[in-house]
């Protein structure tokens, strides 16, 4: 199998963003995933979010592990440098890349097998280190690429394609991210673009560890009756906590929401998220209440989606380390090499 290039042609009335780019400038190669795979919808939501934010594609670094989900970075942002690392270890590679150049926008894409099993540790540590990134888990509750084994996020009792029920307890990536101190935590559904696109936009603008657990049904191995990650199941059990719109600081959009249930949350650069609360008194600023709320929903068989937690004054790894504002990869000899005179002093101190 070889790489597929997409034919280039432009519709004359095509939408153009602030950079003068069209949607095509955010596309990648043609997807080789199964037709209807949830992951492809997430790719298109990512493209849409980057287009709407007018992000220069070459300033985005997209990194992933191994799996169907991790293949997707080839299918979006063709002008960006990409990195398919090894299975489960994208977070460390992203952390290193971010250390080297803090000026790029880091997008990590992973699967539930990739992040909740083999890479569980790396996922946890990248979050607790507050690496400035958008970390999306395309969560289908199975291993897609290796053909349908249960993953660590498969719900207890959820049935495999062959009808076998999963006996083990699931890992809830959102709960874990909350516990580890992620400063932006969301859950969404690949089938709900209206919710997913603004969430990705807000995550990309967030200056800290932003985590999105995106339920993304696997057409081939996990879209049958008895599965808790199928399209039908998720549609039927989606309990949205809020719906939101992203208001760019550069070009504010106004949305017409019902009075009383609306809340604007400002991000660091002046852009804002306009939240429409659906779940009564749900407070996106209360970490522990969020955990309790999600657990309660899960007990009722519901999947809480939306923006789950936000810290409006996040810190990131560089702030914690006190690293230079100039990217480390841009420092030259004069910054880095102390020179012969300094070495002579060191020699003298060692006698």
């Amino acid at each position, binding site marked *: 199998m070889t790489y597929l290039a997409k034919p280039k042609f432009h519709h004359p009335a095509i939408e153009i963003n602030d950079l003068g780019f069209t949607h095509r400038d955010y596309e990648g190669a043609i997807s080789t995933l199964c037709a209807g795979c949830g992951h492809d919808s997430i790719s298109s939501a990512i493209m849409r979010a980057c287009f709407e934010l007018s992000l220069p594609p070459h300033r985005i670094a997209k990194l992933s592990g191994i799996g169907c989900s991790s293949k997707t970075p080839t299918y979006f942002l063709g002008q960006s*440098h990409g*990195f*398919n690392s090894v299975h489960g270890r994208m977070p460390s590679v992203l952390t290193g890349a971010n250390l*080297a150049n803090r000026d790029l926008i880091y997008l990590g894409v992973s699967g539930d097998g990739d992040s909740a099993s083999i890479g569980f540790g790396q996922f946890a540590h990248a979050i607790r280190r507050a690496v400035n990134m958008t970390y999306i888990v395309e969560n289908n509750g199975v291993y897609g690429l290796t053909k349908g084994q249960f993953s660590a996020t498969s719900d207890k009792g959820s049935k495999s394609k062959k009808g076998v029920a999963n006996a083990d307890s699931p890992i809830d990536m959102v709960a874990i991210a909350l516990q580890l101190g992620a400063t932006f935590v969301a859950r969404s559904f690949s089938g709900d673009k209206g919710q997913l696109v603004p969430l990705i936009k807000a995550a990309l603008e967030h200056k800290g560890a932003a985590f999105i657990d995106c339920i993304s049904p696997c057409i081939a191995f996990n879209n049958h009756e008895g599965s808790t990650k199928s399209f039908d199941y998720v549609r039927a059990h989606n309990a949205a906590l809020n719906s939101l719109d992203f208001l760019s600081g550069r070009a504010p959009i106004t949305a017409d929401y019902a009075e009383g249930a609306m809340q604007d949350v400002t991000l660091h650069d002046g852009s804002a998220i306009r939240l429409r609360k659906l779940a009564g008194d749900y407070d996106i600023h209360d970490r522990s209440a969020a955990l309790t709320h999600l657990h309660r929903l899960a007990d009722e068989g519901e999947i809480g989606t939306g923006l789950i937690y936000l810290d409006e004054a996040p810190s990131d790894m560089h702030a914690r380390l006190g690293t230079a504002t100039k990217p*480390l990869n841009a420092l030259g000899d004069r910054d*880095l090499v102390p020179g012969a005179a300094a*070495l002579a002093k060191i020699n003298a101190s060692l*006698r």
Partner: protein
Amino acid sequence: MPIESVNDFVIRFANVNGSGSASANLLFARSVMRMGVPIAPRNIFPSNIQGLPTWYEVRITEAGHLGARGGVDMMVAMNPQTWDKDVASIESGGYLFYDSSRPIPASKLREDITVIGMPLTDICNREYSDPRQRQLFKNIIYVGALAALLDIDPEEVEKLIGDQFKGKEKLIAPNFKALRMGYDYAKTHFSCPLGIRVRRADLIGDKIFVEGNAAAALGAVYGGATVCAWYPITPSTSLAEAYERYCGRLRVDPATGEKKYGIVQAEDEIAAIGMVVGAGWNGARAFTATSGPGISLMQEFLGLAYFAEIPAVIFDVQRGGPSTGMPTRTQQSDVLLCAYASHGDTKHVLLFPRGPHEAFEFGALAFDLADRLQTPIFVMLDLDTGMNQHLCAPFEWDDKRHLDRGKVMTAEELEAGKEFGRYLDVDGDGIPYRTYPGAHPSKGSFFTRGTSRDRYARYTEEGGPYQDNMERLLRKFDTAKRHVPAPVLQPAAKPTRVGVIHYGSTSFAMDEAMLLLTERGVHVDALRVRGFPFSHEVTDFIAAHEQVFVVEQNRDAQLRTLLMVECGVDPAQLTPVLHYDGTPITARFIATSIASKTIGAPTPEARKVLS
């Protein structure tokens, strides 16, 4: 007969770990150095923090031998637990210094040695009421006594104490007092000096005294490393710690306090190498420091870095394996693990520094090589080099030298229309051009992956492009031969058919072994290998000698295997000399092994290779 020797003996301190003896013993060693006499000290310590036995050995060596000698001329026996073994290890005619506060039955002493008992505990109990003080000053008191016994100028010790407690002047006077107490006691109770003694000389010159790991870390600073990701493991931990210390001094912007480096203590070695790979991909110079078990965990990523051609530097401070083996003992047993790290067909560049001077030099060079060759570079240290302080020539740096970032295509070059194909071999040396992420809005981006791809970094599973790529990687490895440090030849005094290949910390003992062998009338040409892939000089050297010994510190003759495989040498031509009990190899061991196995006289070819 008591041993008589001036400036040439071995003294060993047997202590209890955690008793504060380390700094007193170092004080002793440095005092000898301040007398202008070369020393070669070594720590011998258990894998434990407190309570277990620990030894510190100082070889006092007018000839400046840097290897371990073997044998003990004087034992300072401060650990009752190891008494029998310690006393037994003294050479006949040697000396025993011990704490005589508690009587020792005559059966526990030896007839053929000089026994010097000093009631250290009694003296301390009389002098100090605080238990910690009793412990700490006991060490200083025995240093004072040793100064008298070995004819070390107490003023040199006092000067060092003064330096050590600069800024904590309150501590100086009590240390002086303890030192003098020991000195005076020895002068009045024993006949000083002993048959072994130190005589002032002028043999140190401008040499420095430094730990190998610290030297390598300083090399990383000078090599422009900005990212360090590591996970604690003996014996490499002090390398990362030294890097942090040096960066704190040399890389913090005085005006803003900003750090021109980033250090992350990773959650494990897999993450550490992952971060190094990510940083290297993104154009920063990055390294990790680890030991064998860490390298084992890093295998998958090392293969990725090799195949995807990402610069990375790995300092491997080797210890006794396999598995947790002997974590605080020295070996050279990761050679094959690193040379062929990961699955599939891989080969990696290795550097073999000997001692701190080269640890610094190769430490810095490794980053240029990693960028030039776009591949992982392993700096192969070991515990003996890394965790001991050694005398060595001062570090050198040429201010005209620049960090060589290798083949990086810049935005300007891309803009000017230069063709970019991530895996194109434009120059025929197997090394392609790369771009840093974010370099140009529309040109030069590519996808990095461990799966096969064509010359333009496009995913493909076709056999042709895969093979093409694998062959280019071999060409690149061949190019590496020109970049790694050349081997160093030390010819025998007389023409010989016998050669010896050695590397890394083994070389210190090897230098001395050559002298011992010459004394016995055995002449050998020695070649010190400093890098892998091996250059033609190595193959030529083997071809020019009828018998070649390969001296190393592991069971399975790993460098010999590498020579056989990579240089196509007949195994019969390479005779292994192996030392792997965890202690540093000695000149005596090498000389005896070689002398017992050598054949015949020199050939004309042997002369040729030496000229």
